[in-house]
């Protein structure tokens, strides 16, 4: 980078400022600033459209109980689904990342990575179709089993759903959807683990697993955490798969296997927005604002962790 600046540095001669240069540099800089404005605009327009709902009397909000009781169960539903997704996806993604970086034969490892990335290319509405038509019916026996044997936990209180369109199914589908995100970032950090550390571990007689435990995992820990948080952000905002699969709309409950589930913010918007009018629209936008703030916080935290790692790791 420094080398490119060199031509402008000699002080003896004044640099020529060509109009073409000025316009081009201005356009490039302007685009960058425009992106910042768009992000600010997203927040500003959502707030401006949410204000009528924020100031409305609680009886005007759909369901007639006020904004807090309206959004509360939705936030709970959103978090429940995303947390299940994270619990399903993180261990699998770390396993996949390790498999591709250190276990798979090197010739086919790249292809395997590409295959996993295909999971990310499939549109979310198709995941919804699949979850509804294939996964939900397949999980019905497990729902029944969980209600019988794990019923003492509030999560599996039952009664078990006969259709499988539950928060548990949604969580698993979301887990599949965020799997490629977490595994891609984990793969990247695992493959960057310093070769000297790895070779030193092997030279001391470590098995492959011990080498990974000593040299790769400590190095890649923050990357896995950051990848999980990015996956969490995606799972929180996922709309269509949830809207199609979940039979939601019930009040706040942590029961994962019954037919009455809290909806999620995003799916609730998708389901109700086309028919919403008046203050209903503003209420939905207010719930969207809440979702935006939650995902913004999660993503900023994740990016901060990623960047901090880049600054202090010995790799660069």
């Amino acid at each position, binding site marked *: *980078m420094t080398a*490119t600046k060199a*031509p402008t540095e000699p002080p003896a001669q004044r640099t020529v400022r*060509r109009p*073409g240069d000025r316009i*081009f*540099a201005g356009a*490039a*800089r302007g*685009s*960058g*600033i425009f*992106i910042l404005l768009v992000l600010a*605009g*997203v927040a500003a327009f*959502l707030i401006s*459209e949410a204000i009528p709902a924020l100031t409305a009397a609680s009886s005007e909000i759909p369901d007639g109980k006020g904004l807090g009781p309206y959004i509360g169960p939705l936030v709970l539903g959103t978090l429940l689904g995303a947390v299940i997704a994270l619990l399903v996806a993180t261990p*699998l993604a770390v*396993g*996949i990342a*390790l*498999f*591709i970086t250190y*276990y798979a034969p090197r010739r086919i490892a790249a292809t395997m990575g590409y*295959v*996993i990335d*295909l999971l990310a*290319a*499939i549109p*979310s*509405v*198709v*995941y919804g*179709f*699949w979850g509804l038509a*294939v996964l939900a019916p*397949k999980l019905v*026996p497990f729902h029944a089993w969980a209600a019988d044997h794990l019923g003492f936990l509030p999560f599996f209180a039952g009664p078990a759903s006969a259709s499988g369109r539950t928060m548990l199914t949604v969580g698993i589908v979301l887990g599949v959807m965020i799997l490629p995100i977490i595994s891609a970032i984990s793969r990247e950090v695992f493959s960057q683990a310093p070769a000297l550390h790895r070779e030193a571990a*092997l030279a001391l007689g470590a*098995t*492959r*697993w*011990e080498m*990974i435990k000593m040299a790769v995992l400590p190095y890649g820990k923050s990357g896995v955490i950051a990848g999980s948080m990015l996956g969490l952000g995606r799972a*929180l905002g996922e*709309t269509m798969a949830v809207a*199609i699969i979940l039979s939601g709309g019930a009040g706040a409950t942590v029961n994962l296997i019954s037919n009455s589930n809290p909806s999620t913010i*995003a799916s609730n918007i*998708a389901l109700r*927005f086309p028919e919403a009018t008046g203050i209903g629209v503003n209420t*939905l*936008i207010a719930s*969207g604002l809440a*979702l*935006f703030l939650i995902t*913004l916080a999660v*993503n*900023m935290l994740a*990016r901060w962790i990623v*960047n901090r790692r880049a600054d202090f790791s010995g790799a660069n």
Partner: protein
Amino acid sequence: MSTQTPLAPVGATSLGNSGPVREQRRLPRFAPLGLFLAGVAVGALLSALTGFSVALTVIYGVVLGSLFVYLVSRAVEGRRKAADRLVTSLVTTAFAIAMVPLVSLVYTVLDNGLPRLDGAFFTNSMYRVVGEGGGAYHAILGTVIITALATIISVPIGLLTAIYLTEYGTGRLKKAITFFVDVMTGIPSIVAGLFSYALFTLIFGVSVRMGVMGAVALSVLMIPVVVRSCEEVLKLVPNELREAAYALGVPKWRTVVKVVLRTAIAGLGTGITLSVARVIGETAPLLITVGLITGTNLNPFDGRMATLPVFAYYQLTQPGTATQAFLDRAWTAALVLIILVMALNVVARLITRFFAPKTGR
């Protein structure tokens, strides 16, 4: 490459045979696989006891298989090697598990989607169709138009920002843009739709629906992807090329346009194609900004349009009287959507292969 050689069984056994080192007992090469399969077989038997089911077979099989490998290896090779083998079977299983939904999904979509993948699907719209027949002609065109509009909006902004970040950017503005572009990649698609809706509501009044609203919403999702991928590519252009251009007295902007962009053109094409693939399947923002109609509307500035993902969604969730016809169309739309995305991915790879700058001379 070199890090792996000490692990190869050949090296270790020859060491054990030739040297005075304490003899290392190792399992034969295919023993772990055999043990694992034996475990799976026992798992299948177990699940057959309680009425055979594939899911139970897999669960029992993986647990028993891993356990067999671990116990035998522990008895023969010792604790540390056994732990290594256990982890090997676990990570391999993790990869195999991830393949299950992919294969199942592709199979299901093909199975349900192929029956209606006929000429009528691509040439008919849903205008005045209430039962069988009809197609997604209008929806496919709508998706193409809206995605093209989104691309026209996103690519100049995204590419110029990437140029700013690699060629011009310094200090806090560059840091801020990099950070917020990353944050922007995480905006939920439905929030992008709400933003576009709020923006156009302020301008045109309530309950406005236009194709261009969807394009704006998709742009919010697409711009950060374009920036990130273009930035990565531009960073790869060697500095020597820029310096050579400066040395010849070429102005900076011409250097960027004629040298940097031209060198990176293959990578840029790939990145932009992939970002199109990323947004072409988006449903939620189009659902709330563009809506759906049964006829063909090709003007993105006038009223509702049909798009493929939204078409698929409504065919599935709001079937009319002839339910099966609606479901068939829904699955075929999903299949076409997947084919579109995969085709874009393939095109992206081909661009890299055929338009990459010639190295060597």
